[in-house]
């Protein structure tokens, strides 16, 4: 990376360098592409680099700027996108062999809005296959590595996004979060990760996982950058009937929020991890926050409820991969039924198959009430717990993950052990509330994340509190290894 570009850590820094002419969009994009090509062998985040396309966009923005034409808020800003996002004319795989050669025929709404604002996608990046996992070890193209320790996972499922940003590839990334897939890798890689309220960003043109839980959100180096990117992507979309409008952004309330940490999330933590959070709460207290403790009665049931509801929705959503209309197809098929069964047997990875089978089981006659309906009822109880708590508090606090990034192979052989990585993030998805993870220094030089949650559509309050927390914490992470 050139010396000039190296200093540009945030979107607003890059914007001012572009505006003053200190840097052209081409120079900025070239710097990020060269960083990408220099470090990707070490961290394996890129599935499809988009050099040519990105440089052409940069030139167009430079030309617009020279001609004095109006530019979008992200004009010339390089970013990466999880491979769940359709971008017309580019390969979009969901990190699955079943979509290994799939070229998107159209661009999804979120990416179209980023492009319209002038952002430049420099690469499609790695993830767990179909976003099923918490480490990228379930990517059918091989795992990505954590820049803070290349023997460790970057988290998942949006692990490529988090690792790329932490390694200086792009100034932000976009991912999807069904049960923690933005916040958990953000915590593991020392960046900011935001899961907005359900429905704030259109899911049109994003590969579906579990439709009642999936949200789209940004990874960024600062809370302010995450806010900028979210507001570009947000908004109602006639192509996604579940989208909602956020209330008008009010001016930030400078009063400290009414905050509490969730008692259940602090139980059973390793003492070194617990100490990092205790110290964070103390710093916030010194900054004027009055932090209480709350107990959410049903929050401990979020993970089992999630692992009924999510596979159920997955089994339905992934039925579309039939080997007939698009994607890979089995050469061994002899009739229509074996086109389905052999294609899905050959090209879906083991975790995807496990989830489809679990989902098929919990939805099947005789088990629907005991599993699926029960989990939907528990979801109600969890949602009500949050609603009641948000009557008294603006912000709930807790760890994003119970541990820092784990080593490769530590959980990948035992599905339930891997599921436990989501234990502190899934509740926000079940309740549909916004949650953000901001970096915290953890034990042995590895990052952790402090998670802040707010009630539905209170993104403004969440950003205000997260910015205040970012300032109060002054987190300094160790050096990356790449």
């Amino acid at each position, binding site marked *: 990376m050139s010396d000039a570009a190296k200093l540009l850590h945030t979107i607003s820094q890059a914007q001012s360098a572009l505006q003053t002419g200190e840097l052209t969009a081409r120079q900025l994009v070239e710097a990020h592409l060269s960083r990408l090509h220099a470090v990707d062998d070490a961290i394996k985040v890129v599935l499809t680099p988009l050099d040519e396309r990105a440089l052409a966009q940069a030139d167009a923005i430079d030309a617009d700027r020279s001609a004095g034409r109006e530019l979008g808020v992200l004009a010339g800003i390089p970013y990466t996108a999880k491979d769940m996002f359709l971008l017309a004319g580019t390969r979009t795989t969901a990190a699955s062999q079943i979509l290994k050669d799939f070229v998107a025929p159209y661009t999804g709404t979120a990416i179209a809005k980023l492009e319209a604002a002038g952002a430049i996608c420099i690469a499609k990046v790695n993830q767990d296959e179909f976003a099923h996992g918490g480490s990228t070890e379930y990517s059918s193209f091989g795992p990505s590595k954590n820049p803070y320790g290349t023997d460790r996972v970057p988290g998942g499922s949006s692990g490529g996004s988090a690792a790329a940003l932490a390694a200086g590839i792009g100034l932000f990334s976009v991912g999807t979060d069904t049960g923690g897939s933005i916040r958990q890798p953000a915590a593991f890689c020392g960046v900011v990760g935001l899961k907005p309220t359900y429905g704030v960003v259109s899911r049109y043109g994003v590969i579906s996982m579990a439709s009642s839980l999936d949200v789209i959100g940004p990874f960024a180096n600062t809370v302010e950058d995450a806010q900028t990117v979210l507001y570009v992507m947000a908004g109602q979309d006639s192509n996604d009937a579940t989208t909602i409008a956020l209330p008008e952004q009010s001016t930030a309330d400078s009063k400290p929020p009414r905050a509490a940490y969730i008692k259940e999330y602090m139980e059973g933590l390793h003492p070194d991890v617990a100490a990092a959070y205790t110290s964070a709460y103390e710093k916030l207290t010194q900054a004027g926050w009055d932090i209480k403790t709350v107990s959410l009665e049903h929050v401990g049931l979020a993970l089992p409820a999630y692992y009924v509801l999510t596979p159920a929705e997955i089994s339905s959503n992934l039925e579309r991969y039939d080997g007939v209309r698009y994607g890979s197809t089995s050469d061994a098929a002899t009739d229509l039924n074996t086109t389905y069964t052999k294609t899905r047997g050959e090209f879906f990875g083991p975790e995807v198959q496990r989830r489809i089978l679990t989902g098929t089981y919990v939805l099947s006659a005789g088990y629907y009430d005991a599993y699926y309906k*029960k989990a939907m*009822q528990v979801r*109600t109880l969890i949602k009500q717990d949050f609603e009641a708590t948000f009557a008294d508090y603006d912000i709930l606090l807790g760890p994003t993950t119970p541990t820092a990034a784990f080593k490769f192979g530590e959980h990948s052989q035992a599905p339930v052990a891997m599921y436990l990585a989501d234990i502190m993030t899934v509740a926000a998805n079940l309740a549909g509330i916004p949650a953000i993870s901001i970096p915290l220094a953890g034990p042995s030089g590895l990052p952790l994340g402090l998670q802040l949650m707010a009630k539905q559509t209170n993104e403004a309050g969440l950003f205000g509190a997260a910015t205040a927390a970012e300032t109060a914490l002054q987190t300094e992470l160790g050096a990356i290894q790449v």
Partner: protein
Amino acid sequence: MNSLNTQKVSAIAALAHIEISDENIGVVTASLEDILKFVDQLQAVDTTDVIPTSQVTGLIDVLREDVVKASEISPASLIALVPQTQDGQIKVKRVIK
């Protein structure tokens, strides 16, 4: 609650349209048993009279104007994605013997 066996898992796999090899069915059955054992803790919760939640933002009957508009996606570009085609149509293997 869960009493899985390889036969049952084969039946689920057939419903899910996924071929699982004989050598894999044991491993798959064991992992599904672990997952079901984990989620079985839900059974202990009293959910009498609790209304199930299937969506969280409370939207009801989201409708749009019923107007015809041209798709930005051409039929040809979609047919180009199909693994096997003939005369611009999607080709499938035989359905009935």
